[in-house]
């Protein structure tokens, strides 16, 4: 199968073909989803090397568990669920080993180099993230950066929908405050 043909296939179709023995097609899935998984890794580990190792581990785990993918949810959600569970268990074991609690939150959102409007929005989200307990921070990324709806975030993380809603609500409030009378508002009015 040529590269273009493989690119045109849906994730779910590729899973079927990989399960039929076309292992090489798994590369297409890796290329499609690696940035999301890496981004998730950065949220948890805040370090590119660890996030890169985490991304590799998640894909290898996904490959070994591929037979269990029933197609009940989108492949992307299924993969994020594996990533989330793996990140939580790695963090838990690291924390238990090091005896750490409540780490300082550093931003990894692109900052100074992006246009000021976006920088303001990202700064507001940073504040929202910092105000959240660590395990809920990923909800902000899933909602605002990956565009996942509440029920999909619930499916991935297992957090109650109302809890997710309230954290996203709080982030939206901060976002709204940041937009009020800011360059962002002027920018929006100009459009």
């Amino acid at each position, binding site marked *: 199968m040529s590269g273009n043909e493989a690119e045109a296939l849906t994730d779910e179709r590729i899973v079927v073909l990989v399960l039929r023995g076309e292992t090489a097609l798994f590369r297409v899935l890796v290329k499609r989803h690696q940035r999301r998984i890496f981004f998730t890794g950065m949220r948890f580990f805040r370090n590119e090397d660890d996030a890169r190792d985490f991304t590799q581990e998640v894909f*290898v785990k996904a490959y070994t568990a591929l037979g269990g993918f029933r197609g009940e949810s989108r492949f992307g959600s299924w993969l994020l669920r594996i990533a989330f569970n793996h990140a939580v268990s790695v963090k838990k074991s690291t924390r238990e080993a090091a005896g750490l609690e409540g780490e300082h939150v550093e931003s990894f959102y692109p900052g100074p180099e992006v246009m000021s409007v976006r920088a303001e929005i990202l700064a507001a989200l940073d504040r929202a993230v910092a105000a959240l307990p660590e395990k809920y921070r990923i909800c902000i990324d899933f909602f605002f950066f990956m565009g996942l709806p509440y029920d999909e975030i619930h499916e991935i993380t297992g957090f109650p929908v109302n809890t997710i809603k309230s954290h996203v609500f709080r982030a939206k409030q901060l976002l*709204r405050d940041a937009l009020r009378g800011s360059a962002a508002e002027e920018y929006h009015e100009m459009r």
Partner: protein
Amino acid sequence: MRCDKAMRRIMERGDGTGYSLSLRLHLRRCARCRAEADALNAAIEELTRAPLPFPGIDVSDAVMAEVERLESYRRDVPMYNWVGGGFAILVGIVLVSFSDSFAWLRGSFGRNFEMPLSIVLGIVITLYASAFIATHLDMAESWMAKRRG
């Protein structure tokens, strides 16, 4: 509806759609809320649409190297094995009629033996062909897709 209640309702929604009638009426009347809601929804949409950071990340080689070390989900039988197997079955069917055992069977049972033997051989060929088709459905699908254009 008051402005603070309207903005709360807007922020409670997962996306910028599906507002209630009272909320839509409020937004129609109140330019300030409308501007705020539009700015908020536009900001969220911009974040969602923007590509994720870390564009240079590529772990596909490392992942595939690891995956290649694991066992493949299915070991495909090479095509020449299928052709060889089919050829062996056909040769066997032809040659069996020249064997001593077949001559003895024919001597003992006469022509009555030929019908059940044909059925058995037919079943063997059908099973072999079914196994080949079942394991090559994807090939058949892509062939049909090409024909359809």
